């Protein structure tokens, strides 16, 4: 993490994109990125995150607004003159060139002498731990190895900015985790700025300095991972990042930034008031499944509601309990798989408890957040 306050490196200023001159795919994107930051654009497919990346790379034109690097607009710079490294989802290695030739391509384009190229290629092959693979063709490498070559090729001409478009999407889970570590290591070692696009929130949470959550062409929230998870700005982010429960109710009153919400079945619960919440309005209260506790337990609590047991699903390291509330909606509780994990009979009722600070009341926007994709 090199957020040493070196000033704004990359800036998007009210950037909009429309393909058909009628509807906007990106509706006014703003962000200021510091040198060396790792920024992730996260969102469901079709949310505009890839379009933002393509505009930055220069493969899509900007409909309005400016993208600038170190204060200079790059809107009118040809993509091949932007000096931005890019890692593609399908690696995009040139199949007719060896690994070394692939790495040498950006260097020879820049007129570097052959001996210098050779030294640089060897250096970067070592960096991605593929020292002996220079003479192989991409077709002779495994998926993880190809991804390393693609990374090395994007870094070898020493761009200050590297874009990654779902680079780990084609890898299996284990390899993906390994490559996440690899990318983080290279980022910290070399200090370049990364703009990373993914729809995998676990990937985003574990790698990024900041995450911009996209939906419907708008950034819903741009914040560090922990803040995004603990303090989502709205119901969409609360639903999209991690797992969440939503309890529907009506706001009775708001005092000291806390909302008292009456829920069907007669009970009142208290939660942190989200932005834009008004007394008398309909509200949804979010509580993470791991922050809910089944009575009896040793944790302190502020809220308690009654619920009917539906099912208990054994996952391994934890157990998921499904309960039904008075209004028929379901609620999930995650309990660590230890001796305290309770047993329930079907239809038995239980009591769920949680802290005020673990729940947030959001205004009910009419529809539930759509997180498909």
């Amino acid at each position, binding site marked *: 993490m090199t957020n040493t306050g070196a000033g704004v490196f990359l800036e998007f200023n009210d950037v909009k994109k429309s393909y058909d001159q009628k509807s906007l795919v990106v509706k006014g994107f703003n962000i200021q990125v510091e040198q060396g930051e790792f920024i992730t654009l996260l969102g469901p497919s079709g949310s505009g995150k890839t379009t933002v990346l393509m505009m930055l*790379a*220069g*493969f899509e034109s900007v409909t309005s607004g400016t993208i600038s690097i170190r204060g200079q607009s790059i809107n009118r710079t*040809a*993509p*091949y*003159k932007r*000096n*931005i*490294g*890019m890692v*593609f*989802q*399908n690696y*995009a*290695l*040139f*199949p*007719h060139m060896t690994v070394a030739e692939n790495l040498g*391509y*950006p260097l020879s*384009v*820049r007129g570097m002498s052959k001996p210098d190229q050779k030294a640089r290629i060897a250096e970067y092959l070592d960096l991605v731990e593929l020292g002996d693979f220079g003479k192989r*063709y*991409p*077709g*002779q490498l495994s998926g993880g190895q190809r991804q390393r070559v693609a990374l090395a*090729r*994007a870094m070898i*001409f020493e761009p200050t900015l590297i*874009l990654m478009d779902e680079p780990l999407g084609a890898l299996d889970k284990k390899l993906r985790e390994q490559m996440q570590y690899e990318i983080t290591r290279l980022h910290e070692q070399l200090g370049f700025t990364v703009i990373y696009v993914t729809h995998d929130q676990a990937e985003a949470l574990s790698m990024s300095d900041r995450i911009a959550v996209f939906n419907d062409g708008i950034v819903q929230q741009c914040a560090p991972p922990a803040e995004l998870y603990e303090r989502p700005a709205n119901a969409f982010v609360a639903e999209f990042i991690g797992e969440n429960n939503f309890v529907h109710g009506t706001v009775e009153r708001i005092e000291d930034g806390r909302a008292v919400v009456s829920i069907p079945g007669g009970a009142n619960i208290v939660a942190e008031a989200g932005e834009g919440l008004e007394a008398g309005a309909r509200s949804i209260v979010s509580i993470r499944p791991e922050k809910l506790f089944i009575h009896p337990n040793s944790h302190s609590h502020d809220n308690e509601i009654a619920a009917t047991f539906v099912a208990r699903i054994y996952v391994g390291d934890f157990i998921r309990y499904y309960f039904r509330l008075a209004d028929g909606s379901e609620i999930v509780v995650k309990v660590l798989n230890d001796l305290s994990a309770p047993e329930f009979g079907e239809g038995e009722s239980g009591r769920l408890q949680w802290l005020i600070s673990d729940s947030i009341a959001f205004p009910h926007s009419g529809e539930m957040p759509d997180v498909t994709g």
Partner: protein
Amino acid sequence: MRGFPEYFTFWHIAGHYALRFTAYLVLAFLILPILVIIPLSFNAEPFFTFTQGMLALDPDAYSLRWYNEIITDQKWTLAIRNSFIIGIAAAFLATVLGTIAAVGLASPWMPFKRLITALLLSPMIVPLIIIAAGMFFFYTSFGLVGTFPGLIIAHAALGVPFVIITVTATLAGFDRSLFSAGISLGASPVKVFWDVVIPLIRPGVISGGLFAFVTSFDEVVLVLFLAGPEQRTIPRQMFSGLREQINPTILAVATLLVFLSVALLVTLEVLRRRSERLRGAE
């Protein structure tokens, strides 16, 4: 050999052999007219039939005189030279134009794609005699009739569809992000085209070029309409050879052409396998 299943009746087996026999018959019907000219071209006599001596395998009944004729007769040497000049130039022109067209047509932003494809492929579908007649009147006004450029352009137009088809086929497997990758690495679009696109579609380009060459090489209708005596090609010469001076020289030429065609076919097959290997490794 694999035996017949136990439930086969006599008629099953009879049907099986009848089908086989028919298949061999069809094959023979296709290939014998081509094969028969090869021994006939070594005839020592100016006949189109096997002589007694040839049937008795008498070495004196065979000779290379008709091959010698090809080399010595000025008409034939001119025709061979013309065929190669026109064929190679037309194939080159068709390959360049067809490749550019195919690359353009493969772009997702190309408007009227189907219409343009249909127009470019039309020389393959429209009857040659109609094209020839049309070209004759059109080229006359440009003074192209009876000239090499005229014939080369005409034959290139016939070859372009083949190049478009073969290059489009190789482009279908082309990953467009390779192009973007090249750009992102700092190469201009033209440089990326030469360094990345062309090497990857090369098998399609070369086989398209060979098809275009062969098309020009055995084309006679356009030549009849557009060529003057100076532009006589091999097929044109064979045509008049059949009518005016019946001698087995044309059989010798035909034999040479058969071997040339086989060589081209083998080249095509090798290229196809190579491109498949490249893509398989991808």
